[in-house]
C-alpha cells in the first residue's frame, strides 16, 4: 500500500473518529449498549487500521509493544486495586458503596473505574496479540 494516497487520507481522517467513538462506547455504556470490552476492542482496532495502512513499523513507533503489554497488566491491576481500596475503606472486596458519600455515587465511581480497567486490559491485549501475529514472517521456506 505504498502510493495509496486515498487510503492514507481516509485512514488519517477515520482513526481519530474511531478512537473517540471507542471512548463514547466506553462512557455511554451506562446508558446504552457497550462497555469496557467493546470500547477496548474498538480502540485497538484504530491502531490496527493505522498499521494496515501505514505499515507496522510506523505503528510500532507510535505505540511500542511494551506499552501494549503494560496496558494489558495495568488494567487488571486497576480492577483489582479498586477492590483493595474498598477493603481499605472497610467494606467487602469490590463493594463500591463505600467509594463515595452515598452508595449510589460509590457504585457509579466503582463501575467507572472497573470499566476503565477492562478497557485498558482489552486494548493492551488485543494490540499485543496483533503485534505478535503481524510481526512474524511467513514460515514456509
Amino acid at each position, binding site marked *: 500500500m505504498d502510493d*495509496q494516497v*486515498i*487510503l492514507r487520507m*481516509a485512514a488519517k*481522517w*477515520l482513526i481519530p*473518529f474511531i478512537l473517540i467513538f471507542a471512548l463514547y462506547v466506553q462512557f455511554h455504556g451506562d446508558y446504552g449498549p457497550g462497555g469496557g470490552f467493546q470500547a477496548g476492542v474498538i480502540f485497538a482496532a484504530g491502531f490496527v487500521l493505522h498499521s494496515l495502512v501505514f505499515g507496522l513499523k510506523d505503528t510500532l513507533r507510535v505505540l511500542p509493544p511494551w506499552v501494549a503489554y503494560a496496558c494489558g497488566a495495568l488494567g487488571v491491576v486497576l480492577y483489582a486495586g479498586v477492590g483493595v481500596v474498598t477493603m481499605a475503606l472497610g467494606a467487602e472486596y469490590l463493594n463500591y458503596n463505600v467509594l463515595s458519600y452515598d452508595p449510589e455515587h460509590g457504585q457509579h465511581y466503582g463501575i467507572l473505574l472497573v470499566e476503565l480497567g477492562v478497557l485498558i486490559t482489552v486494548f493492551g491485549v488485543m494490540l499485543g496479540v496483533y503485534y505478535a501475529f503481524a510481526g512474524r514472517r511467513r514460515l514456509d521456506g
Partner: protein
Amino acid sequence: MEMVVDVLSWVFILGGTFFVVVGAIGVLRMPDLFTRLHAAGMTDTMGAGLLILGMALQSGISLNLGRLLLIYLFLFVTSPVASHALARAALLGDVRPLRVASKED
C-alpha cells in the same frame, strides 16, 4: 406537516430499498468484477443515502439524527475508499476489465 414528512420518508425509504435491491441484482448478474463493483457502489451511495435520509426524517431532531448522520458520514468515506482499494488491488493482481470487441478487430 406530519403527513408531508411521512410521505417523504416513505418515498426515500422505498427509493433506497429499490437501489439496494437493484445494486444486489447487479452484483449477481454483471459480467466482470469491475462492473459488479460499480453495481455495489450504487448500493452504498444511493441505497444507503436514501435509506438513512428516510430514517432521519422519521427520527426528527434528536440524538438519533446525529447517529444517522455519523453512519452516513462513515459510509460515505469508507465505502468508496474500500471500492477504490479493491479495484486497485484487482488491477495490480492482473484482473483485467472485460472489453467489448471494437469494430476494427
